């Protein structure tokens, strides 16, 4: 597992998290390249299916990054996103996949450091968890 480099999909809302990611760039704060950002207008736009499909397609981890609580550009989209993340976590548990592979983080537009820190922490966490069991099993099966 030494060489395992997780692929992590980050759904970032335009107004806060995506801007924070840009901010990390402006400040040249490095974070793991494992994190692939998909921009959405609001974290509330992230559908349960999007998260599931990301995992099904082979992501080792997925997180939704939205605005700080109470600061959502669209009032409460981030809270809805959180509910959906919880729903996915419960579902993953049912199919024996670690629910920690999915999570919700929040930050404001200026929090480049926080974005980078979250990216680091989540990458590390997923690295420890190892590859997405579905993907790993399939690769093993193919190899065999």
């Amino acid at each position, binding site marked *: 597992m030494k060489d395992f480099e997780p692929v992590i*999909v980050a759904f970032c809302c335009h107004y806060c998290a995506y801007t924070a990611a840009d901010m990390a*760039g402006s400040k040249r704060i490095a974070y793991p390249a494992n994190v*692939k950002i998909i921009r959405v207008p609001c974290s509330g736009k992230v559908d349960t299916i999007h998260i599931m499909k990301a995992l099904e397609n*082979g992501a080792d981890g997925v997180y939704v990054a939205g605005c700080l609580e109470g600061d959502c550009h669209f*009032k409460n989209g981030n809270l809805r996103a959180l509910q959906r993340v919880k729903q996915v976590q419960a579902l993953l548990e049912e199919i024996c996949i670690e629910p920690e592979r999915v999570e919700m983080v929040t930050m*404001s*537009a*200026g929090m480049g450091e926080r974005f980078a820190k979250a990216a680091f922490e989540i990458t590390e966490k997923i690295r420890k968890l190892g590859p997405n069991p579905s*993907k790993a099993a399939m690769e093993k099966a193919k190899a065999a």
Partner: protein
Amino acid sequence: MQNQNSIQTGKVLVVGGGVGGIRAALDIAESGGDAVLADNAYSIGGLMTQLDRTFPTNNCDLCTLSPHLSESGRELHIELKTMTEVTGIQGAAGAFEVTLKTRPRYIDVQKCTACGECFERFPECVRFTPGLDHRAPTCMRYPQATPWAYSVDMEKCNDPEALEKVCKMGAILPEDRAEETLIEVSAVILAPGASIFDPAHLDHFGKGTYPNVFTSLEYERILSASGPTGGILERPSDGKQPERIAWIQCVGSRGIQKGAASYCSSACCMFATKEAIVTRERFKDDIETVIFYMDMRTSGKDYELYYQRAKNEFGVRFVRCRPHSVVQNPENMNLEISYTQDEKSENITEEFDMAVLSTGFMISEETRKMAEVMGIELNPHGFAETASFTPIETSKPGIFVCGMFESPKDIPETMVQGSAAACKALSIPYRGKPAPDHKLRAPADDAAENQWDDYDEYEEFPPERDVTGETPKVGVFVCDCGYNIGGVINVPEIVDYCKTVAGVETAVAVGHGCSGESQKMMESLIKEHQLNRVVIGGCSPRTHETKFQDMVRRAGLNKYLVEIANIRDQDTWVHGDQPEIAANKAKELIRMAVSRVWLSIPLADHTLPMNKDILVVGGGVSGMTSALALADRGFKVFLAERSPRLGGMAANIRKTLEGEDVRSKVEEMIERTMNHEKIQVMAPAIIVDHAGMPGMFTTGVQSGPQMFYSSIKHGVTILATGALPNRPSEYFLNEHDAVITQLELDERIEDNPESVKNAENVVMIQCVGSRTTDNPNCSRVCCQAAVKNALRIIKINPDARVIVLYRDMRTYGFQEDYYKKAREKGVVFVRYGLEDTPVAEADGDKVNVIFKEPILGVKVSVNADILCLSTGFISDDESTEDLGFIFHLQRTDDGYFLEDHVKLRPVDLPVPGFFVAGTAHAPKNIRESIVQAQAAAGRAQTLLSQDTINLGASVAKVDGKKCAACLICVRACPYSVPYINADGYSEIDPARCHGCGICASECPAKAIQLMQFQDDQILARLDGLFERMN
């Protein structure tokens, strides 16, 4: 007549790039005018960018503000001139010739990408203040400076040649020279702001000598995460976190210290309170906070509540006194503050770890010089001279003022004045040389005869090519962005890779994609290869998406057929030390974009025709001011007033504090309003129903003596419904003839001075019915009214004894001068507390007023001929509630309309297309009401300048066939937009959709898609990412 509507306005020069100037320039630009924004500094932003947080939300509102700032940099109507000052002015309103002098920046702003290379090599001589420079007092959370460019201090540079070579963009210009430009403008707005009082010369406060004494702005920087300590609060003397912090108010204001201004700086009370609250919020009981003050001047909207929260919820201690000195304890470097209080005679000394001086605002020497150049009159304090009914007009026609230069004030008031100044400046017709491109769009009564066609589009776009049915042909253009991208990854290699990605027709490296040449190259490649989809590998879409959208439009493609892969901000900038990883990620990001753009479809921005008529509700001074401002610009205005006559509350006022005759001004205004051909006055009129959206509202009004119903169609609504004079049944008001209100006293002094002349004793009681449980806020105008009437009584009868019983004297700004004058003239001001309120007893035709003399501590009884109660305002609760229901507007707890954003959008209401002015917003005086009314007219014009309303393309669409009418979207939408239509499925009005997509992701039938972010497009990105696995 109608063609005269199209006033030709020239450019407007805005001097000063703080929030006020930016607001003014933006409003001008949004109204279709052109502004030149000149600022002395390297980048715009002014004082506000130095604030960590602002009240009342205690948020850093700069995130909300930042779109404004970058907008002003990008906005085609605004020419930004930094490092520039005004050196001369010729001509008159409508045709000024202004000379501007720009100091050399040594950087070509157009070429500079703020890559930072030069700064890295020559930190001593390169300046950049986007919030990244630890030396700069700029907020960290604000990610962009405008302009987004460096500047160079050439004097500090030893090797200009080497410096020049550092820049791959060739943006460094060692030979840059100061430049003088002559511009022709029709109006000028002065928004130079103010500087902060420097307390260094005040030995008794020790600023500059004691390390632990700060000014309030310095303290703000310390609290800020981007400040000199990185947000760590510690004492410079020993690096310890302070346990006790004191604020000392009125440093440099109210004539307290040597060199201090005599006026009140207006904003410091709230500033200090906010700093104390933020400190308590963050450190809880670890830090004790004490504010030493003379009068707590929290008279703004809901400010009193904030003050109460500071006291009661956050445990900030407020001590009324004048500290006479701050002495440093040499052993522990603590600060001993000594003071005496009214009630107790002994001298008290308290020890603090840190002291913050609430320093006031001053007009700088530079600003005075600028005013001299402009030829405008200044008041004795060096501020621009204005009058109550022309509050932002300087002595020179065509030159307007906003913000601090008019008088000391806080951010919302500055914002209001910025909008008002824009409105006034736009009302000056251009009289200079014919310049057709300076035509301003005006209401089109007769369909405008297409006369603005050439104006609508700055760039002519060719017709869009119809790409439906074509197989997607994707062109990938990869920027190197100088070192930014090209310095990390090998762009040609990336380009070669892109060519191998499925669906890519061609891939090309384009250097700086945002540069003119590259844009042209891409345009021709698109045409040459008949591309129908475009991917740009470059910087963040947040920066240049519009630019690339315009580029594909010029190439004949719909603007939504371009997709940007953020390979700079989110790749090379963060993986600069791992080129290989960065290159891989760049490939992935481009692949994701290609996969996504494959599914892009042409979208049309949603537009609606704009109805340019305006409904103004309320015919007082505010309503008339708004109506006249708009009608003068040629807009049709419906003015609905509830009572049969215009004039509102001001019709009952005789004089302002400054002595201006209110009645004649109001009469003049009524006359003009009634006879204005563009204003239809409806009085009496009552609003009964309302529907529609901004640009096409329909409001039902019943008007005339018969209350006849008619429907008015209008594009925007201005609410100026006013407040009511409060009349609480206290102190025998309405029962005893000797007891009257300030309004009545004002009238009596003017209309029947004899009745006042013989009064020996006049007692005034402040805060009757204000700052109470029932009406918790301050009525703002009573202190000035008391001072005004007291001075007038003394004038009529110099022997009269006038006693004002007050809680805090809130004579903010220049009113302080009158307060001082009243004291000099012998008016007695006696403070009372809530624990010991004055008592009145009827005594024949007089009233005995009994109150406690705080210094002596004894009860005093005065036999008053007149007991005048300062009853102030109370909201017109029933009316605002009624209108709130009809218009779906929010109100504050005390019944005033709630604005969209207390700080940054104080005139806009949360429902788009609605604006508020005057006392319907909060208690204010005539001058402030007029400013806000002008601002409302200005804000309204920003909407009205559009012929159509562009709603963007990112709206939710329902597939009626799939919809199960489950109501989930109806319930989930944060804006209550979806509804189940007559056909039984959900319908989303694109005009009201905000584009968040929450409904789309909640829909259990997957019947809703958010355009631009359709599910398949999002999933396509995943496909692009995982291509190598699947």
